[in-house]
């Protein structure tokens, strides 16, 4: 989770796969999306969203971002 300039820029929540491929987490859609196009990540990647550690991380990020 990054929130480099609160009030100036939106925060950003993302997930890196083990091969360093990055996916952005869309807080509205509650899905991982392509960081360039906003298109949904493939199901193989999307599975991680359902995992406990991921949900906890998102909850923590949302608290920090004030969502």
């Amino acid at each position, binding site marked *: 989770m990054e929130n480099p300039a609160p009030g100036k820029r939106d925060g950003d929540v993302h997930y*890196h796969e083990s091969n360093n491929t990055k996916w952005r987490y869309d807080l509205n859609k509650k899905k991982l999306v392509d960081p360039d196009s*906003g298109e949904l990540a493939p199901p193989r990647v999307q599975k991680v969203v359902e995992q406990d550690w991921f949900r906890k991380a998102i909850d923590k990020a949302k608290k920090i971002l004030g969502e």
Partner: protein
Amino acid sequence: MIATAKLEKLLEALNSYKSSNNFVFEIQHLKELLSPDFVSVYDCILISKKSVEVLEQSFNKAIEMYGDRTGYEASNTEMRINDYIDNENLNIYDILSLTMLILDCWSAKLKQIDCEAKFCFIISCDSPYVTLRYHKFRETEGTWLLEDINQYEGAVGYLII
């Protein structure tokens, strides 16, 4: 380097640090660190494995998501250096030392791509992790960071070249 007190302290200690550690890399990871895939698209230079054509198609959506070119670049040039190194016995000074070398390499490459542009390189440390990213410095958009660097509690800094 404009840096918070925490990063200044680390950089000061780095000046007198003599490492005896060896780095272990996969050759592909070393290439990705020193010479990543820089892609120019509509006045942005991103690190991406996608083609220019693909990035051009999604460019407007990307600007919508990130707010401006600076946000798009800074969010898509991020590299956590530790993720590309195979050994885990390295300390923050080893990683920072390597990061400064990578910054020099990126700077040279980026200036080859756009010699007119100024680039803002941003280093952030959350020991033992060090992240490097950059964006073109545009007068109209400013840096990706807060204007007052001292508002950050952590070890953060930037260098405009």
